[in-house]
């Protein structure tokens, strides 16, 4: 860790020209990754990442540099080099670094760096066994274990000076089911802002592993999905990826501030069905995308993005707040010191409605029931989204019928939001990794079961 005086000297070096803001982000991260395949532990790797990022800004324009060096002279040189981007007189900004100490908002019991690798391997082997025991059709199981302790120190020329520790762990199981004709996969990967107690207090390892195998075996016996426009019931949990991709990204200041988002300038307007209330909450207790502070040193918070269909708030970082002339929502996040922070989601979900799951299925004459979603992507400029359905069923006469595989959902976020015509009461959040300009970060997606009255479904079977 750097001495406070060194940090101050680096920040002052960044202000020797016409810049009006500078920030130092220090990261020290210890991570363990392990992988099991074909019943054998194939890989165990410890890694120690350490680096420092320096950001210098004037207005909303910023420059960024990073290095693994913690030597004062290297850091002062980096800051001085960056400062040359803002030629002119120094603004003589005075600041004091007074550490804010609020204590960690999330409690951990067993720090990953203090748990033996042997104990972590036991968890993987349990998962592997349960996934394989599920069915004789399971031909391969890949188990991945990862946990880390990320320590960060963030200081800036507005006097922010904070220290945060993020402890995260995740267990991912990918099962392959095979017969003579095809191979199909199933995936489940729960995680959280937890230490090793996650595996005893929060999840049941065997249940998680069985779930991955259940999806693979179900899909092995599924037919190809028909294509065409139809009502789609998207189940709770990871189904929230539709909102994350199709709407969430377009509500990040990164795209809104530049006018690149379809939602730019639409605050206060109706952008969704009145059944939709959506929230981004970085304070959920031990949530995968939670932390005490964001990566700009501001306290994480809860944002109501859409209230009863009306656009209420964007997700905004420090610099974009200046550009948009709007309040910062403490949404600055980054993968590591290698990235300048920008506005990002934390744990984003559609809030509960009033319908039950059974009511939603019974009300659907014909359509697709997307029980498990895979990943997807969105073009923030057009709002066009796509995502894959990893476990799907046809709904016929208000009942769940045969399983189907290979379905993709495409549409635009705007249209899909307006076409939500039923919202369930069974909210659940699940874990994902979200990629954007400030890197790949942990983020929860979530929702209750919802129905969209019409989405284009792509599948190999062709139109009905």
């Amino acid at each position, binding site marked *: 860790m750097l001495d406070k005086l060194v940090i101050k000297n680096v920040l002052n070096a960044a202000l020797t020209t016409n810049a009006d803001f500078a920030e130092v982000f220090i990261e020290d991260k210890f991570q363990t990754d392990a992988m099991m395949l074909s019943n054998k532990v194939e890989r165990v790797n410890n890694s120690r990442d350490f680096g420092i990022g320096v950001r210098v800004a004037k207005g909303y324009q910023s420059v*960024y540099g*990073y290095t693994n060096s913690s030597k004062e002279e290297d850091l002062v040189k980096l800051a001085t080099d960056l400062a040359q981007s803002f030629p002119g007189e120094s603004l003589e900004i005075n600041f004091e670094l007074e550490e804010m100490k609020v204590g960690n908002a999330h409690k951990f019991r067993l720090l990953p760096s203090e748990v033996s690798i042997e104990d972590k391997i036991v968890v993987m082997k349990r998962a592997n066994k349960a996934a394989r025991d599920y069915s004789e059709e399971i031909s391969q199981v890949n188990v991945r274990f990862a946990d880390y302790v990320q320590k960060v120190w963030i200081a800036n020329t507005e006097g922010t000076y904070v220290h945060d520790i993020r402890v995260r762990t995740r267990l991912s199981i990918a099962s392959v089911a095979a017969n003579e004709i095809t191979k199909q996969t199933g995936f489940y990967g729960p995680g959280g802002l937890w230490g090793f107690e996650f595996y005893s207090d929060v999840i049941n390892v065997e249940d998680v592993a069985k779930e991955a195998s259940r999806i693979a075996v179900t899909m092995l016996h599924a037919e190809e999905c028909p294509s065409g426009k139809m009502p789609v019931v998207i189940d709770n949990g990871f189904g929230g990826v539709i909102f994350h991709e199709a709407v969430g990204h377009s509500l990040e200041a990164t795209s809104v501030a530049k006018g690149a988002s379809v939602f730019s300038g639409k605050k206060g307007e109706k952008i969704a069905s009145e059944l939709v209330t959506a929230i981004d909450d970085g304070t959920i207790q031990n949530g995968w995308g939670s932390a005490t502070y964001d990566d700009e040193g501001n306290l994480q918070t809860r944002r109501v993005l859409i209230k009863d269909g009306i656009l209420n708030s964007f997700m905004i970082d420090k610099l974009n707040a200046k550009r948009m002339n709007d309040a910062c929502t403490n949404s600055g996040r980054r993968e590591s010191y290698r990235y300048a922070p920008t506005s990002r989601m934390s744990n984003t979900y559609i809030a509960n409605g009033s319908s039950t799951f059974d009511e939603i299925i019974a009300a659907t004459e014909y359509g697709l029931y997307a029980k498990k979603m895979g990943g997807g992507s969105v073009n923030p400029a057009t709002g066009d989204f796509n995502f894959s359905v990893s476990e799907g069923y046809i709904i016929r006469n208000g009942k769940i019928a045969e399983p189907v595989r290979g379905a993709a959902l495409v549409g635009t976020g705007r249209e899909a939001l307006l076409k939500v015509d039923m919202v369930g009461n069974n909210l659940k959040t699940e874990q994902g990794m979200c990629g954007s300009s400030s890197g790949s970060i942990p983020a929860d997606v979530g929702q209750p079961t919802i129905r969209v009255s019409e989405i284009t479904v792509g599948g190999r*079977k062709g139109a009905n």
Partner: protein
Amino acid sequence: MNFDRLFEKAKAAGIEDIQVYFSGGTQFDVNVLNQLLEKYTIADTARLSVKGIFNKKMGTVTTEIINEDVFDFIIESIISSANNIDSEDEVFIYAGDKEYPEVKGLFNEDLETVSVKKKLDDTFELERLTMNADERMKMVQAYYFEGKTNVLIQNSKGLKLEKTVNSAAFYVNAIATDGEDQRTAFELSFNNDYSDFNIQELAKRAAKNATALLGAKPCDSGEYEIVLTSDASTALLQPFSGMFSAESVQKGLSLIADKVDQKIANSNITLVDDPFKAKSPRSGSFDDEGVATTYKELIKDGVLTGFLHNLKTAKIANTKSTGNATNSGVAASNLYIQPGSLSYDDAVASMKKGLVITDLAGTHAGANSVSGDFSLQAAGFLVEDGKILSPVALITVAGNYLDLLQNVTGVCNDLEFNHAFIGSPSLRIKSLVVSGK
């Protein structure tokens, strides 16, 4: 950095053989929006990956703190890693090949002598030219990226190999609007010879591709004859490239595991892995294990000839490493479908009723590398009687990659590589299932 002390300590701790892989370098990237500098990043970083054989198992560790103080952490981590691995595959630290091929054009000194000001000016110019190329342009972001990497592999068997590569790219993200519809294009140009960059051409291409899809609507669902442009075909090849790795084969994750010497593609398809491609940062004379690299035709006239190997997979398959080891497994260097003689225009003109697919989105999720199935969001143009009729968007195309390779009816002469150095020319495909309106 001198690693002799680390090697000595490792030996004393019972580590049979040890190898360091040091990768360090500098990076510079800028982004211009509305004639303002949106992003400017400079970096100087290094990373050390160390592996060692302890009780016949390979332990690994990675660190960004690189000094003598972490030697104990490195050794402890290698031993605890090795102690927990139960894979029985034989592991190797390589003493080296007799000869390494000479690879030219990996490092271009001139790239560093071009001033930062010139590079910034050109990025501003790229944004301005793209913005002014068409009145329907709404917003343009222009980027310049430059990186230099030094790699050193050194081990206790006396191997010591070094290489320095540099690369640069201009790219542009363009948004066009006609008042109602909004469309985007992403174009990039890679090179380490600065004088080869053509900003004017890149700007023109970005503006053309961003405006071309304005007003695009879904077409009718059905089966269509397809021309996949070079961009689209490359995007589709990328998620399926893993099936050519012997590692996937041996783990039961490759669709083509038992298909060597069999026809897995139309005879017009030849798939190449070329580690000697000039001006590519993925090229080099040795792989991450220190094995000499080789040029391979993985598919030759439609027939699968073999797989990509590292030392471990080669031993299991009783063959030689192809020089495709990475620190995490096996990967291609510069993988591409060899171009044919058909021109893109002729391929389009030959379709009576079909679709040109210019964009495929979501390949990281909608393409299943284990089954070969894909169902992807697509955009492009409807073609009738050889003429482009109208732009099409928000459709999906679905199929199976192996079926697609069998059904290639024309290979064009317009090979291009993407940022991951995977390449393909445009391909004409007999048919794919399209879901639209």
